């Protein structure tokens, strides 16, 4: 792990984390995960609390006191039925799992799987799954993913058998609450195993129920040989909520991972995707979009590893920023030795609608193999005046023309969402923010 200088500020953060951790281990911890909790806590202490010189948090204000002045979110709480129903996309009524502050809410969840070929189970008694979390924790470098492991009380395994193919989508809803004075920390942890040749769609929806929600979910997806995963991640935060989401993806030979991440911003949302194409011919089509206003922030940190021959990756990022919003994309594609015939392309675009907004783009390539094709590009700018003029000469007012251009900019990503109810929902959530 990268070592950071311990300053007074970061020392104070570490002390607060330790204080919370000690309290958690005395009263709230689950004995089944104690080993993982302690391992993660030790790694946090060794690594130190990161400040802005840390390469993982260049664009994120880790000094934000809300990130360590937290209480543990109350569990269990529940949602009323009407609110819960409103969160379920049409068509997912019988394939929805509710996680409230990290706990599976069985009353709200409705999950039927023919022949039990798709199952959800707690990790507590599953030694192999626990070992997987433990091993991943050992190599984890993200302080907030380690925080998840340090404060993890529950974890679940979503298991999709070999060859299972579903037309519909499985929806996972992660709702985080938090009232009170301090932010309420929740640490959902899900392992998703996709069997060989399976073809499945998953929608993950992160929602803040209250302003003081502070959620640091960890998801781990392992895709079997020849499997296909359509993965949609929707973040819907409140103004003062914070979400730092770690998603680990491992693709076997010829596995295909299509991902669309949509963020509506909040005080802070940060996605950390760590994607490993470790099987020959694995492919990733990764897309992320956010529309931010006022002081909202959304950050994408992606590390994508080509580890085998003939893998393909496509990464597209789009941000639209109004007012004093902030967005960043920090994306690195690493082509490891032996990963010949890798084909990778990264494109980052940000559209600035205000002089006070700020967007940072940092595309990187690290190539340690021969015979590869890797490109990247980045653009930050305003609405093209020639496009605006063209539309005005086609009868559109300034407002309409601007709306068409901003909408289309975001819709190039949103339009890729392969599930109409989710696509419509994201359009409503994000494009509505472009209204004056």
């Amino acid at each position, binding site marked *: 792990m990268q070592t950071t200088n311990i300053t007074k500020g970061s020392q104070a953060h570490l002390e607060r984390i330790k204080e919370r951790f000690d309290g958690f281990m005395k009263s709230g911890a689950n004995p089944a995960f104690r080993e993982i909790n302690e391992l993660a806590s030790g790694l946090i202490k060794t690594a130190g609390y990161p400040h802005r010189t840390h390469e993982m948090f260049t664009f994120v204000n880790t000094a934000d006191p809300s990130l360590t002045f937290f209480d543990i979110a109350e569990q269990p709480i529940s949602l009323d039925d009407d609110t819960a129903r409103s969160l379920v996309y049409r068509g997912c009524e019988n394939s929805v799992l509710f996680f409230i502050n990290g706990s599976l809410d069985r009353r709200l969840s409705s999950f039927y799987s023919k022949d039990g070929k798709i199952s959800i189970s707690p990790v507590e008694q599953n030694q192999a799954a626990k070992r997987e979390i433990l091993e991943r924790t050992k190599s984890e470098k993200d302080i907030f993913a380690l925080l998840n492991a340090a404060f993890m009380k529950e974890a679940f395994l979503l298991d999709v058998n070999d060859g299972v193919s579903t037309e519909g989508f499985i929806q996972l809803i992660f709702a985080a609450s938090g009232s009170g004075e301090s932010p309420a920390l929740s640490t959902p942890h899900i392992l998703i195993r996709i069997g060989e040749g399976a073809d499945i769609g998953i929608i993950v929806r992160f929602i803040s129920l209250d302003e003081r929600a502070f959620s640091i979910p960890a998801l781990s997806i392992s895709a079997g040989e020849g499997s296909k995963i359509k993965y949609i991640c929707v973040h819907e935060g409140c103004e003062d909520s914070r979400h730092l989401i770690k998603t680990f993806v491992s693709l076997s030979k010829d596995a295909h991972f299509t991902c669309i991440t949509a963020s509506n911003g909040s005080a802070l949302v940060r996605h950390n995707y760590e994607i490993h194409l470790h099987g020959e011919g694995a492919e990733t089509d990764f897309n992320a979009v956010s529309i931010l206003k006022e002081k909202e922030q959304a950050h994408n940190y992606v590390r994508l590893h080509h580890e085998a021959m003939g893998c393909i990756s496509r990464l597209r990022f789009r941000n639209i920023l109004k007012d004093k919003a902030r967005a960043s994309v920090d994306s690195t594609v690493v082509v490891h030795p032996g990963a010949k015939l890798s084909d990778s392309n990264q494109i980052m675009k940000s559209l600035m609608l205000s002089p006070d907004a700020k967007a940072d783009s940092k595309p990187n390539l690290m190539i340690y193999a021969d015979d590869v094709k890797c490109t990247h590009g980045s653009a930050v700018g305003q609405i093209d005046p020639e496009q605006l003029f063209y539309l*005005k000469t*086609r009868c559109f007012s300034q407002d309409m023309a601007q709306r068409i251009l901003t909408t*289309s900019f975001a819709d190039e990503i949103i339009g890729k969402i392969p599930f109409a109810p989710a696509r419509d929902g994201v359009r409503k959530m994000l494009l509505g923010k472009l209204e004056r």
Partner: protein
Amino acid sequence: MLEIKDLYAGIEGNEILKGISLSVNKGEIHAVMGPNGSGKSTLSNVLAGHPSYTVNKGTVVFEGDDLLALPPEERALKGLFLAYQYPVEIPGVGNAEFMRMAYNVKAKKEGREELDPLDFDELLSDKMEILGMDAKYKERAVNEGFSGGEKKKNEILQMALLEPKLTILDEIDSGLDIDALRIVAESIQKLGSDKNALIIITHFPRILKYIKPHYVHVISSGRIIKSGGIDLAMELESRGYDIIKEKN
């Protein structure tokens, strides 16, 4: 319909139009011809209201209104249409939906019925067939990945849908092969009537073999230096822009 008087205009402090005067009536087709850099495209941009251009002197009256006082969208709604030499691409905006929205904005302004996607598709299909355009261009983003010829056809398609009173065709023939030029020109011809008018801005006389103008104007250094009938275009065809030197 259109009355341009003593128009001086330019861009970034460079005066390009230096006293253009031109009258266009309903039912007329005018060709404005000239060598590169003579001010042809500046004229079309100024008439359409491009914000980068500044009018320094002169008046333009269109259908009784001061055209120069109107923003571009009001000019379009009044019936002015510019078919671009280089139409811009608008990624992410579906061509058919874009045209339906434009059609409906104009229809609403004129108190006509707005069309839903199904009815509009019928209208659009008819117009595309006339232009020999493949239906795949409906779903593509506006002009994105279109060939030069398809972009020009797409401009004429919009002209056909919006039914403008005055169309300015800015170098509509550039980049077209002979077959595409014939199809585009025939379509433009079909759209002509005694209720509307055309200004064809072109460098080469070849499009005028298909669309016969009533008047031909030669522009040079920002001024119309010679006007005449189709014979003038024929003269340009045979002698080139040397006639400008004689005039000067």
